[in-house]
């Protein structure tokens, strides 16, 4: 297939651009300082031997060069604003502009974390309103907004688990984690001093209840479960799972990475979850920013509330708000100040724009989109689990393997068709996984273009496998050498490399 048959994109010149250091020349500047309204001081006499004698190696460039530099670099990125970004479990949805605007209002963006509570009532009200909304959405009793990202929320949640069990006399030793889980789950359990015990999935891609029953004992603190899991499958045995854990005194932690499948349609608090984290940058539309910032609030049931990180926002008798530090059973702090507040602002703006019906419709559309793709691509690609899926769907490269083509090759070829690839080779329970999450933000046209692209690539796998194996063909760079990068790491620019 020639590039003229690709409907979504066309090639277009993109500007070349070096590293910012390569534009540097002494005397160029992009700033002018204010008039100093106090006497100047001599740095050497102020600082003595602590004075830095050699200036840090930073570039000297002009404002126009900076603007062009970052504009040019930006054009080399693919983004949600370009089109579908179906990275499974990352929930790459549209990022509303009003969120960005309100987060930048001067006395919101300019609030100092230590200014008096009386002068920060607006900020506290934003946090409280968001906290209440998220508690309602999760069907929980309490929440902390302090964790800075999903993995940080996981850590906070497992700290709650540990503190609670300790208060009952025994923190226990192990945490059960299904084989389909994100890598952050086992890494988190280890950070909180737990051993990780793998829990296998059954043939339907759900928790093997018999295995859980056999593995659950008084040494097990709890289970970290993503539901729907990374296969996009909602574990219908969730009630039984919670019962098995609770019967032996364990707790059920839910990784809320896939909450976009549930909002306003089901509440984890109603199906036995003791605590969970949310990713505001997934479910609640705060931007991913090229890798962050995120925000990972942790909601919990009443029995875990005393252990939440401090401070929490509390209400005074007169209706005003304060930061409550008087929490003797708290697990402590997981971050300085109050979390990624700027993300709290954005998430709340999103919830307000949606309302209860909008949130429900959003979830329905997310599930509708994923099921549409599944239906359209079934047969063209191998579907390892026949179990119905929710907001994402996982295919494998099994059919294309015959030509020696792997999931990573198909992903690279998708780039030529104008799409960001799906999540490659994850979850690990599926060999050659292709994990697709369209989110609710995709119009039908975009979904159909994606289906066309995937089918065209499948055809290419038969007719011209080398074309796929050597993709992408239309990008500035192709198939970067990751092995060489790791073998002899170059992690900073040095002038002699020029």
């Amino acid at each position, binding site marked *: 297939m020639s590039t003229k048959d690709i409907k979504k994109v066309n090639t277009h010149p993109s500007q070349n651009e070096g590293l910012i250091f390569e534009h540097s020349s002494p005397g160029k500047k992009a700033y002018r300082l204010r008039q100093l309204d106090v006497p100047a001081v001599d740095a050497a006499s102020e600082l003595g031997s602590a004075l830095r004698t050699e200036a840090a190696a930073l570039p000297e460039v002009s404002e126009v060069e900076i603007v062009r530099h970052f504009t040019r670099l930006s054009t080399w990125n693919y983004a*949600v604003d370009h089109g579908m970004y179906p990275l499974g479990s990352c929930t790459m949805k549209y990022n509303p502009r009003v969120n960005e605007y309100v987060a930048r209002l001067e006395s*919101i963006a300019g609030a100092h974390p230590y200014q008096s509570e*009386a002068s920060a009532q607006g900020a506290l009200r934003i946090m409280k309103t968001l906290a209440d909304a998220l508690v309602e959405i999760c069907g929980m009793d309490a929440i902390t907004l302090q964790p800075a990202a999903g993995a940080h929320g996981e850590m906070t949640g497992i700290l709650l688990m540990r503190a609670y069990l300790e208060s009952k006399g025994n923190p226990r030793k192990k945490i059960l984690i299904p084989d389909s889980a994100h*890598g952050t789950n086992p890494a988190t359990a280890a950070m909180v001093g737990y051993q990780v015990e793998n829990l296998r999935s059954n043939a339907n891609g759900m928790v093997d209840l018999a295995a859980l029953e056999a593995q659950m004992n008084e040494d097990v603190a709890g289970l970290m479960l993503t539901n729907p899991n990374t296969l996009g499958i909602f574990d*219908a045995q969730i*009630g039984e799972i919670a019962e098995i854990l609770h019967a032996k005194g364990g707790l059920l932690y839910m990784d809320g990475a896939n909450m976009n499948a549930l909002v306003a349609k089901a509440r984890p608090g109603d199906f036995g979850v003791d605590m969970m984290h949310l990713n505001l940058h997934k479910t609640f539309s705060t931007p991913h920013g090229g*890798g962050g910032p995120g925000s990972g609030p942790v909601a919990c049931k009443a029995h875990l509330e005393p252990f939440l990180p401090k401070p929490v926002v509390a209400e005074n008798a007169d209706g005003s708000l304060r930061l409550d530090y008087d929490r003797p059973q708290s697990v402590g702090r997981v971050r300085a100040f109050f979390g990624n*507040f700027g993300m709290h602002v954005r998430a709340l703006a999103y919830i307000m724009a949606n309302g209860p019906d909008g949130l429900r419709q959003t979830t329905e559309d997310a599930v509708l989109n994923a099921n549409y793709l599944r239906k359209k691509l079934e047969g063209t690609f191998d579907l390892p689990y026949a179990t119905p899926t929710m907001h994402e769907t996982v295919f494998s490269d099994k059919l294309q393997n015959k030509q020696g083509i792997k999931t990573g090759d198909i992903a690279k070829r998708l780039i030529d068709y104008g799409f960001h690839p799906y999540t490659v080779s994850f979850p690990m329970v599926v060999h050659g996984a292709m994990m697709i999450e369209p989110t609710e*933000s*995709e119009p039908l046209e975009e979904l159909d273009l994606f289906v066309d692209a995937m089918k065209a690539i499948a055809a290419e796998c038969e007719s011209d496998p080398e074309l796929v194996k050597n993709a992408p063909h239309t990008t500035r760079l192709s198939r970067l050498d990751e092995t060489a990068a790791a073998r002899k790491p170059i992690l900073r620019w040095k002038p002699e490399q020029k």
Partner: protein
Amino acid sequence: MRYLPKSPDERKLMLDAIGAGSVDELFAPIPERFRFTRDLCLPPQMAESEIVDWFRARAAENANGQQILLGAGAYNHYRPLAIDTLISRGEWFTAYTPYQPEIAQGTLQAIFEFQTMICGLTGMEVANASMYDGSTGAAEAVMMAMRVTGRHEAILARSVHPEYREVIATYAKYQGLPLTEVGFSTNGRVDLEALDKAVTDKTACVLIQSPNFFGTIEDVVAIADIVHAKGALLVVSVAEALSLALVKPPAEADIVALEAQSFGVPLSYGGPYAGVIATREKFIRQIPGRLAGQTTDRDGKRGFVLTLSTREQHIRREKATSNICTNQALVALMVNIYMDVYGKVGLRELAEQNLAKAAYARKTLGAKAKVLFEGAPRFNEFVIEGTADAEAVFTRLSKDKNIVAGLPLKRFYPELGNTSLWCATELTSREAIDTAAEEVAR
């Protein structure tokens, strides 16, 4: 709902294609008893203009146009407008982690530049792509030192930001890592004698902050000698990154945990900010978080990729160096742009203005109250002991003068009595300093 790009007909068409009679059929996997059938108790959909109104009303409930004479881990510096105009391009803020380097070279190159500038600033050889913030970065640096040395005790200077120490305590609790504290002497610096006694051959690391929580610049060389003599690592936390433009970088440290908020990141009531861990090349396999590295593509062209990912959770799972996944990439981009705007010369001149403002503030407030910790250099923060109650001054200045005054230290350091921690930056006006001085004496 205005963020949803579908008409009712299209939804119907899609359901038909799937073979479902209604969308609720797609939710059949959820057992009926767990399906949520009522409306969430939330306000109804709001128009964009209503949302803007609501947040403007909240903004009005915060202090407006205040003068800030307080730092303590969050610094009020001017943010050049280029930052927000550039990061507001969708290609930056609506992308994710650069997993596919062919279509993420912008983000990857920006991270590589960021890592380079952090190395130049801190005197270290490698820097990661970012951590959540200065406090978690410091905690991860302490954990890293434990892995590097194979030792299981850490010493924290009491002059490290109190909230950073709280976070480290949370992280260390279940790592079998006992923490001990070492105090400060009358000049505000780490008590070297006490430190010398505290460090043993079981000590994994000593964490100090410089400038420390009181604004005092530590004698990093002397501390490093004591720490290294026992084979421990020195971790230096830097909360006011701008100090590095004028203060000798902590090149004797083994790990630097930087909070980069000063560089173009809004105060935003405490976050999002950006932590960074910088260290020596030899410790590279133990560094947490993402790293961008230079490589070539198949035609030999220079490009950048995420590298050394075998350290990370998605490969190593429970054996990873950290559980961190999402970091603070967009904030690191702000920092990058900021460092370009000021550059090699401007950052130093800006730091000199901070030094001048703080010197003036110290002198002016010092005429009405006692300046503590004399005898060691400071950057833009200092501690005073006044006759008026520090909490009362704080409340009064906020209420009557719209000034965020020095932080009363009794909250964190009962032993320091009626003291407060002040800060002056290039944005602090002489008038505000003069006003504050009047109140301190009242």
